[in-house]
């Protein structure tokens, strides 16, 4: 089933705007399709799942607030050229796991503020751009207090005349000691007109920190293609398999309902086939 069909038949709650407060552990994820402004608050100690689906080139502004000890799994999917701003603010010992999939020329800004000690954030993202699309993935993680952890991995694939931009920033405030922050940007360019820009930045004002970032720009591994062809796969299939493998580990982290994950994987696959 395509994602759009899934939405049509969506039996899940759909919040298109306004405020949501998750006060108790929910079995069902909260789903919002094409939100324009949305505020989500996860109450103290509550575990919640939130799915944001963007299917139209609109503007979205989302604010997520995690109270002490709250835990949120946030899946954010862009199937169109949405302009979005997602702000996450986390209190102590809260945990936010995000999976972001960007297909097409969405321009998305994430601003994650770790405001309470022991807060943890993880983000796994992927963007795929074809034709003349321009994807922007802007991620700022702010370690405002001590003892927080953050880890992010964003993978980009661009082909055709597409441009993919990753702008990352890890900010560690003064006295935010014992910060553990990692940020990784991995990119693959296909064809001679594609364009990757990646800026993984660190701004650090505390000394007892473990911070690292890495960025790579590369291409499809020719040796791997050769290897697969020797096993009988066509070059085209081998490329697709390789790319699916490249973005696969991000998609695998998507833990919301199976139906949606499968539909999304299919969207990604068909996008990769166009590369």
């Amino acid at each position, binding site marked *: 089933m395509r994602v759009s069909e899934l939405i049509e038949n969506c039996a899940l709650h759909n919040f298109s705007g306004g405020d949501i407060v998750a006060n108790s552990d929910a079995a069902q994820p909260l789903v919002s399709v094409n939100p324009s402004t949305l505020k989500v608050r996860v109450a103290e100690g509550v575990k919640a799942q939130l799915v944001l689906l963007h299917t139209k080139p609109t503007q979205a502004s989302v604010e997520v607030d995690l109270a002490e000890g709250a835990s949120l799994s946030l899946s954010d999917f862009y199937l169109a050229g949405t302009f979005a701003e997602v702000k996450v603010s986390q209190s102590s010992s809260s945990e936010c796991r995000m999976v972001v999939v960007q297909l097409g020329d969405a321009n998305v800004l994430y601003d994650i503020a770790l405001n309470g000690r022991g807060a943890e954030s993880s983000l796994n993202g992927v963007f795929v751009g074809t034709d003349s699309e321009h994807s922007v993935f802007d991620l700022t993680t702010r370690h405002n207090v001590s003892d927080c952890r953050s880890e992010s991995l964003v993978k980009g694939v661009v082909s055709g005349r597409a441009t993919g931009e990753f702008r990352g920033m890890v900010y560690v405030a003064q006295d935010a000691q014992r910060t553990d922050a990692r940020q990784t940007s991995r990119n693959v360019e296909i064809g001679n007109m594609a364009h990757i820009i990646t800026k993984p930045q660190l701004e650090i004002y505390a000394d007892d920190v473990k911070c690292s970032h890495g960025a790579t720009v590369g291409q499809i591994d020719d040796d791997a293609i050769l290897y697969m062809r020797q096993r009988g*796969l066509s070059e085209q299939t081998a490329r697709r398999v390789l790319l699916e493998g490249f973005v696969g580990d991000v998609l695998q982290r998507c833990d919301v309902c199976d139906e949606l994950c499968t539909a999304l994987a299919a969207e990604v696959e068909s996008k990769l086939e166009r590369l």
Partner: protein
Amino acid sequence: MLKVKNLHASVGDKEILRGINLEVKAGEVHAIMGPNGSGKSTLASVLAGNEKFTVTAGEATFEGKNILEMSIEDRARMGLFLGFQYPVEIPGVSMANFMKMAVAEQRKFRGEEPLSTSEFLRLMREKSAVVELDAKLTSRSVTEGFSGGEKKKNEIFQMAMLDPKLAILDETDSGLDIDALRIVATGVTKLHTPQNATVVITHYQRLLDYIVPDFDHVLYKGRIIYTGDQSLALKLEKEGYDWLINDYKE
């Protein structure tokens, strides 16, 4: 099955194969030995169709077809298998999925129906036993994080899965401890039938303790300079290549 006549190949301006002649018939096991840099791996790569090398002269037929004109995948689908000296890691692609696709491509090429999932899984189980491959490895990404021995065993496992007519094993024994060597060698022997053939490229005699070749070739400076039987390998092990090379003046 495989006929190679006066094969010349180069990479860039450098000629590496300088007139190879080789015939391999069904049911035979051939060993190709030779010092480093003599062109052994190049021969394997050229036969498999690696585009890094340019064939400048000569011919190579497999099952009566000129393979030099064929793409690497078509040669593979015809049943030519190359066991890589350095198997490539493919992050994020599970071995099971990879093999499923490879088997499907081969069956499609032969005009056979694709295997059902359960048939495929049965085949996987059966074949992984041949090389005593831990079933868990097949669910991991292709060779990612495999040890050297596991990678090589995995090559033989793939060979078992694809059931090739001709398997060329490029230095499959290098970097193996004695147990892994035994497992790999026994695997190869088990897979050998009167209908298929194996070419073992090796640097050492020790693999040939387990796989007894019908023919032993010595490759030097891009040519096969000597062909003998098992006793040749023993002599090489004892005396090295010098006596042969000295014999062979250009």
